[in-house]
């Protein structure tokens, strides 16, 4: 009986939760708790506990036929050589080293790697450091007042204990958002224009929000202004294991948003898409499969099978994330290392880069370059007050807004016990919903019958933690009926 033990980091978000992966000789994967991991003390959230289901062995494919990885690399090289209108996407769901390697392939192709974070492009560059780089998680526990713009329980569960610790040392917590947050002293359903006056923040305060591929840049600007005006520190949580790393490695280059890329494909300005551990079908709310089919070339480099690997002409299947040699940078800017020593992914990218006329590279060399990009300190706002538009929040008369609360299960479209929407008791009563029954929701994307849970949310709002087939974006206008 042989068992491999890997020290790795949870790919669920950018918290940087350490864990062990045990892999036995039959390939069965189990998690174990890495209690000395400073970010999480070995603790894992709902998503982390499901990781054995998340990892899956990626298969290399050429034109829908299983192939060796070498053949897939060769096929990709042929396809990409001289390809025009190429877009490359890596959102940060793999190691910094692989991302860096991917940028070298981009160099060879004369393009850049997009991280899918359109928000950055909308912000003046002097804001990027503030958005892209968090603060030590320990500091959360020291804040005297915290304004919470996330749902910690479902979105970034490992921050719950930090918030509770802050609360124990006397912090007051105000949640701002559609859903009642249990650990908050108060939950406010207020618009950006009221943030400054209603929240009462000062320099001892901390703003916790998040930024992800579907973030509204206008809202991010409001939050940046709030931090600037009140002197509060601000930290943005992020959705992918190396979100902070890829931001640092690709800053100043392409940070084209996911939507923008999809639009580009749709309009025909992008003919070739190369992805690194980034599946647009999982990442986008809905309906991108048809858009992806418009591509001339879809080359996927991935450590796990996902919907896009079934659609791609070429799949370069690499080793599972936990086995890779490499590192990640978490939201605190901490460099976290995998104990694994496999370099299948990097070697593949190296071959690809060479085939495309670039230089060879190796893991160690890439790691050294990654280290150069680490930012040690949080430096505070270096920007001036941003002008931003007011946001329209109220739904039309007789309609409701169905809001996606992005969480790891949603990003990877993993099954969970979350196929329901949250509505408030007024909605239940006015629609005459039956206890234990369903609600029917209709949007432009179709009609769906789904279970519902009663939650304290404002009238007209519905929340969901699951990627639903009828959603058309982060916020979908729906009409609801009892059934």
């Amino acid at each position: 009986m042989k068992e491999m033990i890997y020290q790795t980091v949870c790919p669920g978000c950018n918290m940087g939760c350490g864990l062990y992966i045990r892999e036995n000789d039959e390939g069965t994967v189990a998690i174990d708790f890495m209690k000395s991991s400073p970010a999480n003390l070995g603790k894992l959230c709902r998503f982390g506990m499901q990781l054995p289901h998340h990892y899956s062995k990626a298969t290399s494919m050429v034109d829908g036929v299983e192939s060796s990885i070498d053949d897939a690399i060769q096929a990709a090289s042929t396809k990409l050589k001289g390809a025009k209108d190429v877009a490359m996407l890596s959102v940060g769901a793999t190691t910094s080293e692989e991302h860096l390697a991917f940028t070298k392939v981009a160099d060879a192709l004369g393009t850049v790697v997009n991280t899918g974070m359109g928000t950055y492009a909308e912000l003046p560059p002097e804001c990027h450091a503030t958005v892209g780089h968090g603060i030590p998680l320990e500091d959360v526990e020291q804040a005297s007042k915290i304004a919470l713009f996330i749902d910690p329980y479902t979105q970034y569960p490992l921050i719950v204990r930090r918030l509770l610790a802050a609360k124990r040392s006397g912090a007051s917590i105000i949640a701002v958002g559609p859903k009642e947050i249990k650990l908050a002293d108060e939950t406010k359903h207020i618009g950006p224009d009221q943030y400054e006056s209603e929240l009462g923040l000062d320099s001892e305060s901390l703003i916790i929000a998040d930024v992800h591929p579907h973030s509204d840049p206008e809202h991010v600007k409001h939050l940046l202004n709030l931090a600037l005006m009140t002197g509060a520190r601000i930290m943005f949580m992020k959705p992918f294991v190396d979100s902070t790393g890829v931001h640092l490695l690709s800053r100043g280059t392409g940070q084209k948003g996911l939507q923008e890329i999809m639009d580009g494909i749709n309009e025909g300005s992008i003919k070739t898409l190369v992805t690194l551990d980034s599946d647009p079908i999982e990442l986008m709310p809905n309906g991108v499969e048809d858009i992806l089919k418009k591509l001339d070339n879809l080359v996927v480099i991935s450590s796990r099978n996902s919907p896009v690997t079934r659609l791609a002409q070429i799949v370069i299947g690499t080793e599972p994330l936990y086995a890779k040699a490499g590192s990640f940078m978490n939201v605190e800017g901490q460099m976290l290392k995998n104990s694994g020593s496999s370099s299948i992914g990097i070697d593949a990218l190296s071959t690809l880069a060479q085939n495309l006329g670039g230089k060879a590279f190796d893991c160690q060399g890439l790691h050294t370059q990654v280290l150069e990009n680490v930012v040690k300190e949080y430096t505070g706002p270096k920007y001036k007050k941003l002008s931003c538009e007011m946001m329209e929040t109220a739904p039309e008369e007789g309609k409701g807004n169905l809001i996606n609360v992005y969480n790891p299960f949603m990003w990877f479209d993993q099954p969970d016990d979350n196929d329901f929407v949250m509505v408030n008791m007024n909605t239940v009563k006015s629609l005459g919903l039956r206890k234990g029954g369903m609600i029917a929701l209709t949007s432009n994307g179709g009609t769906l019958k789904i279970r519902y849970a009663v939650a304290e949310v404002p009238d007209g709002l519905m929340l969901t933690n699951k990627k639903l087939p009828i959603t058309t974006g982060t916020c979908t206008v729906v009409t609801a009926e009892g059934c």
Partner: protein
Amino acid sequence: MTEQETNTENTQKEEPRIGVFICECGVNIAGAVDCNAVADYIGTLPNVTTAVVNKYTCSDAGQEEIKHAIKDLNLNRVLVASCTPKTHEPIFRACVEEAGLNQYLFEFVNIREHCSWIHMWEKEDATHKAKELVRMGVARAALLEPLQSNEVPVTNKALVIGAGVTGMQAALDIGDMGFQVYLVEQGPSIGGKMAQLDKTFPTNDCSICILGPKMVEVARNKNIEIMSYSEVTEVDGYVGNFKVKVKHKPRYLNIEDCSGCGLCTEKCPIEVPYTEFNEGIGTRKAIYVPFPQAVPLRALVDKSVCIDCGACIKACERGAIDMEQQETFSELDVGVIVVAAGYDVYNPEPKHEYGFGLYDNVITTMEFERLINASGPTMGKVVRPSDVQPPKRIGFVQCVGSRDKNSNIYCSSFCCMASLKNAQLIKEKYPDTEVYIMYMDMRTPFRMYEEFYNRARDSGIKFIRGKPAEVTETQDKNIIARVEDTLTGEIVNLELDMMVLSVGAVAPESTETVRQILKVSKAADGFMMEAHPKLKPVDTTLDGIFIGGMTQGPKDIPYSISQGSACAARATRFLAQGKAMTEGITAVVDDDICVTCGVCVPMCPFQALSMEDEKLKIISALCKGCGTCMAACPTGALQQSHFKNEQLLAQVKNVFAYGEV
């Protein structure tokens, strides 16, 4: 896949279409519950295809309506809200089956006993409650699954364990009904304890005179195969399909060749100072016939004393004797089992105060029975053991080992009458003898028993209400019983020539072995336990296994024989039908969830659960569907069909609603 299974699958996949029938029961329900309002509300619930009100749903018209609705509306679930399932569930189950719906897809809601009748003057509350009760039922009905109560074929043979009077009666009755019976007896002859008795109360007929013919009848009955000197060693299976292993102990002669002539016995040089049949009194030979009326009338060799001289082999004209005989085994397939394994008399040795085993002239009732029996060791002459002289003063002590918290707390029920009988027999034979009965209470129920007691009183027998506190022996071996007559408060020192201990009955060790082989439950008194003390007095909790006579507890001969017949009747039901129905509601296990921790196994009183090859095995023929194992199961892998957690929780959840109904 059989057609039935296909149907099952279809029903599970189909969207539930529930027909709800609300009964007014004349004014019994409608008097307090607004049935139309209930139907209106229920009609709005999901999965409900129709909700109607009937005057009397159980009437022919009502049942016809259900059947039509099943066909016309393609219903796949039916719910009736009316009275109690305890009386009407079978009627409606049959009704839906007739319309082609599995009977387990029927759900019953009680809105009469549990609603209209107990909220007679709060019509609003009653109506509201009725709505909720039916809502709960609808939620459960939607989750019901079709079940099959399986038919198992029944081997049309019976096994009767124990050939005392109870077992013989059971065997005869089953045999007479035309079914083959194996009658297994551990002793060398059938007849049991009754064969040893002298007379029987209250008629005082000679015991063997009435039993003997019955024994012969058993032997002659073509359907009965007697297996004497044999023991049941293994039993496997379940109702209709028991596999039984029987051990035949060696008699050291071929039973087919022996005629029971007794020539061998005559020639045998070994005189054994102990006779089993005579309770140890008297002598027998190393090769012997148990008693003159024995059935089968065959000899057997007591190998423990035999010196292998060969005299008997020479004497036997038929060459029946085989000193090399080994024990053999038979394997029987039977459908039902009757246990009539009898009892032991209480051994009074631990009761030192009575001096049994210490003083020669203290004997037990059973020894007395053999002493006074004309074919007994003394040819019916009552003598006392110490000097073989007729006793002039005899005392009986009642409740020895019975109604006594130091030995057995139960009443052995036959001993009062036995002593009354024996006392009278003495008075008849030796009118000059002084006879005393020392007792706590005389218990003489049933026909002619009390009269028998009165006759005893009239015959000059002296009754002392009190039990000896101390018994001593004089130099000439007389017995002094120091006893308080609690009616007079007087303490007397009664000098007796002989004292008879009226010992009670206990469950013998051999019965305990059989009980464990069969896995029948044991009652607190050590005897086997019936399924229900009143309603199922000879059934056990195990289908197809019945208990009668002393095996079930102390009783007298008429009661034992009645139970023998009762066992036969109960058992033959299965044989006559040729099939047994297993419970449709049983334990079921989801092997994907079960971790085979085994905590459920000891929960089952019916031995339906076992762990085999790292898997939980459920013998559904043994499962009675009580559901007590599931509550112990930590994983929830074990479920009770028809009462699954989901089904019960659906009811719980639907007790409550958002807002007004």
